[in-house]
Structures are given as structure tokens and as C-alpha cells.
């Protein structure tokens, strides 16, 4: 807990400095306040980001003061006319890609999108083949190892459920 608190304080100071820096820059050059930004707009952007210091908490719902300040930073940036993409890029630059809810689709991160597809497709191919083999074996055909026992096709199971219930009732 104390660790979190000290991180929070540290971050707040850093933020204060960086906000100050941004503002200091802004009165020199440009980036005037272009428009009013609503909380909803801030949250829309913030929910695609994760809090850089807390554990695994989206920035829009994070309750710490640090996150409140980050949300204000987002508001300031949006007010100065930056787009959501600019904000994401800024946060990724400052705190690393791990603050992005959706990691950039490049480099090693591509695994996250490719793996599910490749795993399922490859899995289907192997699984399909395996099933095919099982069926071939049970049909008694095309078993490569000559000694494969040719099992006659199974009779359809007498598993008609309604019939079973009938039977059960008749027994009573």
C-alpha cells in the first residue's frame, strides 16, 4: 500500500511537471484551447488505455488521483485539438505500449492475432485427419498397418431416449 502511495506521489509530481511543461510550451507557440471537451469524450479515449501504475486497471475507471490527473491531461490534449490517435501515441511514447488496451499490431504482437486463427485452423486440420482415421479404422477400411483389426460397423445404438423412458415406465 505504501509502495502504491509513493508511486502515486511520484507520478503526480511527474505529471505536474509534464502538464506544466505542456502548458509552458503552449503559451510560447500555439495549441490554444480549441473547444470544450466533455467527460464522455475523455472516457472514450481513456477506456482504450490502461493505468500505467496500477495493476491492470483501465484508465477510465481507475480511482487513484494519478489517473484522475491523466484523464485531465487527455482532456487538455483533446481541447487543444489533438485526436484520440495522438493521445494514444503520446501515452505509448511516455509509458510504453503496455498502456494500450489493444497492443499495436506489429512485430511480436502480431502473434496475438495470428495465434488464435492459426491454432484453430491447424487444429482443425489435424483434428479432422485424426477423426477421419478413427472412422476409417472403425469402418475396417484403409488401415495401413495390415494387422489392423477390421471391426464391423457398429449397429445403431438402441439409445432412443423416448423409448427408454417408455421402457422404464412399463417396468413399474
Amino acid at each position, binding site marked *: *500500500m505504501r509502495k502504491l*502511495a509513493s508511486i502515486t506521489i511520484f507520478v503526480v509530481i511527474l505529471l505536474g511537471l509534464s502538464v506544466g511543461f505542456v502548458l509552458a510550451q503552449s503559451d510560447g507557440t500555439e495549441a490554444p484551447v480549441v473547444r470544450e471537451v*466533455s*467527460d*464522455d469524450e*475523455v*472516457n472514450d479515449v481513456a477506456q*482504450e488505455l*490502461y493505468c500505467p501504475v*496500477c*495493476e*491492470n*486497471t*483501465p484508465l477510465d*475507471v481507475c*480511482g*487513484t488521483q494519478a489517473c*484522475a490527473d491523466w484523464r485531465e491531461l487527455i482532456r487538455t490534449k483533446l481541447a487543444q485539438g489533438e485526436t484520440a490517435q495522438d493521445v494514444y501515441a503520446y501515452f505509448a511514447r511516455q509509458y*510504453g*505500449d*503496455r*498502456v*494500450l*488496451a*489493444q*497492443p499495436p499490431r506489429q*512485430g*511480436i*504482437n502480431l*502473434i*496475438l*492475432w495470428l*495465434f*488464435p486463427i492459426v*491454432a*484453430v485452423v491447424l*487444429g*482443425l486440420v489435424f*483434428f479432422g485427419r485424426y*477423426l477421419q482415421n*478413427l*472412422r476409417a*479404422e*472403425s*469402418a475396417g477400411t484403409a488401415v495401413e498397418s495390415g494387422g489392423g*483389426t477390421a*471391426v464391423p*460397423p*457398429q*449397429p*445403431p*445404438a438402441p*439409445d*432412443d*431416449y*423416448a423409448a427408454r*423412458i*417408455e421402457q*422404464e*415406465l412399463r417396468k413399474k
Partner: protein
Amino acid sequence: MIPDIGYIALVLAFGVSIYAAFSAWYGNRSGQIRWVESGRNATVIVLPLVALSAGMLILSILRNDYSVEYVWRVSSRDMPTYLKVTALWGGQAGSLLFWNFLMASFAAMVMARKWRKNLNLMPYVIIVISMTQVFFLGISAFIENPFVRLAMIPLDGNGLNPLLRHPGMIIHPPMLYLGFTGFVIPYAFAMAALISGQLDDRWIRNTRRWTLVAWLFLSLGLILGGRWAYDVLGWGGYWAWDPVENASLMPWLAGTAFLHSVMIQEKRDMFKMWNIFLVVMTYCLVILGTFVVRSGVISSVHSFAQSAIGPFFFAFIVIMFAFSAYWMTKRREALSSKNQLSSFLSREAAFLYNNFIILAILAVVFLFTYYPIFSELVTGEKGFVGAPVYEQALAPLFAALLLLMGVAPLTMWYRTSIQRLQKATVWPALAALVITVALVVLGMRYWAAMLGVWIVTFSLLLTLMEFWKGIHARMKRGEPAWTALANLMARNRRRYGGYWIHLGVLVMAFGIIGTELYQQQTQMHIMSGQSITLGDYEMVFNGARRYAGPDDLMVTEADVDVFLNGRLVATLAPQSELYTRTGQPMTIPDARSTITEDFYVILVNWEPTSANEATFRIYLNPLINWVWAGGLIFVFGTLVASWPDRKQEEVLEARRERVALGVVGD
């Protein structure tokens, strides 16, 4: 004095576990049954020892004995008694002790109930369980010792982590621990079957109900965890794909696959190796999950229970993997059952499809959960996978699973004709389509929602028809509908328990579609007297007040009126709490809850200096209560499926008894 007794009992339990494993091994090797019996007695004695140890820790907390570091860490004088008791699992060391207590309980129960019927499996069961206990008790006694003393005795304790003071949070961890520790039983029996070479399905029959019960507790833990998140964490949701959530979801998935595929072995004596593999995997995922939660290798919202036990856990996991893999390879031949498939359209094939989809989901969750470690190994930077990535990858797989859930029960063993399946599905498919189209006309727009609603409705109709088929057959014989249903369930507990579970999942699926795709939210800073509009709702802010709660709690409570189409429907009091001692904030939402939707209000910010202004965040969560209702149905179904069928049991019992007596005597 009291902590000393607790510690001595703990160390004794550790020693007794070593003895139990040894004497079971020796007795089995030398063929001396009394040594095995001694091992059993030792396994049973671990329970009172660990119970005594846990009792002493609770007593220390109740007596405010802050000379014990753990007591100081998790409790304080002003905590109510029930919280002091539950503080037992409020931190790392105590929760490990509690874990040991639960595992010892399962072990003792198995020894008491399954002894005579499985005499030749038992030595190995004792060895596997005892070795696991040696590890966990060793961690408790020597690394995460809850009885460590402080040099100076503080006047008051730190108090329990506020997040853990909610009623939902008090029962959520024990449920998960029960689920986790419960899986040691099927694992021990599977390993016993492997090592002893008795690979018939006795181990499965003996552990079926234990597996179901462990699985039930794991399900309860997951559902309660979701409910707790929704009630206390204040982010409008119930599942965040947090690594620790995933750590308990993964064994649940593996266990679900096992509970299905085991039916193929029971009915057709196939896929023996596969079932052993699934049980081993489930248990490995349990231990891996425990490791992840407790070592902090992956950052998570659950990081309040971390410490330096990582390396030991890791070694244990490696040993367990190697041990299991060794015996599976060694018994490869004996396990190679003659797997046959008469048709792709058969019950056994359907179970295999189920296993395929569940394992695909498991593989994706596994990769995503451990991606931070994986990417750090490769690139040096810890990657991160947020919830949206999970949802994209898993939604199609879950959809396929729900579709299979409806169709699979129509298949028969060996083969089912395609005509038969067509005949049985065509009307439900059309009916589901009509319902979907009606909803589109009423304004449903997302294609994902349309597809989802169609699939879930279709499967729901098919499941209900399964009930109807059975009831109808009985009604034709003159039974009234309700009697027919009751008799049907009483006589086929597993089948209808399973269908109830399916119903529960489908109801939950409606809830998830509603909240995932149709959640609305808005946030606004308003003055008292002003209002916020969301959907058909309007919320008026009347004012707020701040007061001191119990403990070091400072509560800020807002008073808001909720109007639906202009009519006052509720007065809500969302709170924001602050635990002043630790500075930890908590957001307690309030909601107007109906079957169709929750109007869920969070007080984001209120400062006493500007008493008449506040910031609110409002969520409209459609169908959220379907998630909880589905959860209840799910639990009911699991209870039906696992409830002992005394009549049938007695018959089997008597038969087995005779066999056991005939073979080994007593």
C-alpha cells in the same frame, strides 16, 4: 503461547505428511497392509493438526495478539468479529494455511469414504496427496509462516484490506480454494491408476462426484468474483480478463472438457489416455494458477497476496509436470484404447468437438495471460493484452461452443442420421430466426448481436425440447407435468443436471450479449438540482453528505432520484469511500436493478468545498441480471448432477462391497 501451539501443530502436520507418504510407499512395496493403513491414519491426522493451527491463528486475531506479524498485518482492534475470522485468508500466509486446511479436509474425506473399495489404488493416492501436502505445508511452515513474531508489539493492527471487507469477497476466495484443492482428488486417483497400472475406469467412477464438486466450487468462485467486481469495484462490469481471473478460468475450462469427455470412456471405453491427460492438465493449471496469483509474476488487480515463494512453486510445478508426463509416457501402451468413430454425427464425436473448442479457448487464454512473460523473454519489454483483444479472439469460439451445446444432446451414440438431426433442428432454427428478426425490427442493429441471439435462442429451444421430450413421454403415461419433470430429473440426474447447466449458460449468454454490446454510459459534472439523461432515464442530483463510517472509513454518499420516462422509480445512494489510514479509495456503486437492465450509478467525485457539485458516471447495463440468474440455474444444475442417487448408489455399493470383500478380505 497460542501462536506457538499453532506453529507446532503446523510443523507436526508437515512431518506427519512426510510419514504418510513414506509408510504408504513402504507398505505397498513390502506388501504389508498395516503400513498402508498407518499411512492412511497419518493422512487423516493431518486434518486436526492443520485445523488446530488455523484455529490458533484465528484465536490470535480475535485476541488482538499483535506480537504475530500476520495478525498485525490483516486485522485491527476495531474490526468486527466476523471480519477477524475471515482475516484468516486476508493475506498470503494465512490464506496458504487456510488452503492447507481445505486440502487436508478433502484428503481426510477421501480416506474415510473410499478406503475399502479401492484398496489397491489407495497407497498411491496417499502418496500423491501427501507429497502435495508436504509441499504446501512446507511453504506454510518454513517460508510463509503465519506465526512469525514481531520484535516490538504494536498497539494496533493495520486492518484488513478494504477490498476484502465486502461480503462477496469474504466467500469468493474460499469457494475458489475449495475448487482448486478439490481437484487434487481426481488428480491423485488418476496418478494412482497410472502408477498402479489399474487403468480401468474405476478411478473415474470414484472421482466423478469429487470432480463435479470441485468444479462447482470453482464455478461458484468465478460467479461470486464477478458479482463482487460488479458490486464493489465500480467499473460497471464483472469480468476483465485479469490474469488472476484467467488463472481460475483455465482449470475450470480444462475441468469442463474432462467432465464431457469422460462420458465417452464410461460409455464406450475409449480415450482413456485423453481423460488422464485432461485431469493432469486441470491440476497443473490449478497449481500454475496458484503460483501466478501468489508470486506476482504477472501483475494483476489481485496483487495483495504476493511474496517470494515464486521459485519454490516453480520447482514444484516442474517436478509435478515431469512426474505426470513420465507416468503417462510409461503407460502409453496400456492406455491405448481402441478408439473408434462410427460417424462424425455421433455423441462421441460431439464430445470431441466440445473438447476441441474448449481447448482452443484455453490455448488462447493461456497465450494471452502469459503473453507479458513471453514477450519479455523475446523482446525485453513486457507486453500487455487488454480485454478487447481477448473478446475479439474468443467470441467466435464461444459462439461455436454455444451452438454445439444445443445440437450435441440430439446426437446418439455410434451414429445419428443427418435426416434425424435436420428434422429435430429445423423448427427451432426457424423459431429462433423469427425471434431474431422480431428483435431486429424492434431496433437490434449489431450483426454480432443478431448472430448471438439466434445461436443462443436456437440452443435454448433445443435444450427445452429435450426436457419436453422426457416430460411428454411421462405425461402420456398419466403423470402430471410437474411430477413428470421431478421424476425425470430424479431418475437421470446427470443428464438433466447437465441440461440445467446448459440452460444456465445460455441464460448467462443472453446477459453477456446484452451488457457487452448494448452497455451505455455517460459521465457528467452537475450541480445539485441538475440532472443527467441516459437512455429513457433521467437522474436528478439532490445533494451529498460525508460521514465517518466504522473503522477508519470516511463515506461520501450522494442522494439521487432516478426517473424512467418521467416517473420516479428509485432513489439511489452511490458512495465513494476512503480508508483514511491507508488512503485507499473505494467506489461503491448503487443500482436500480430490473430484469431488463440495471441503472448503475457511480459517484466519481465530490468535494466538500463545492458541496452542491458532483461528478457521476452512469451505466445502463441491459440484461445484466440474466448473468446472475443464469449463474443460479447453473449452480442448481450442478447440484442436481452431483447429488448422490442413494437408491442406485446402494445397489452399486453392495455389489462393490462384495467384490472388495471377496478379493481382499478385511
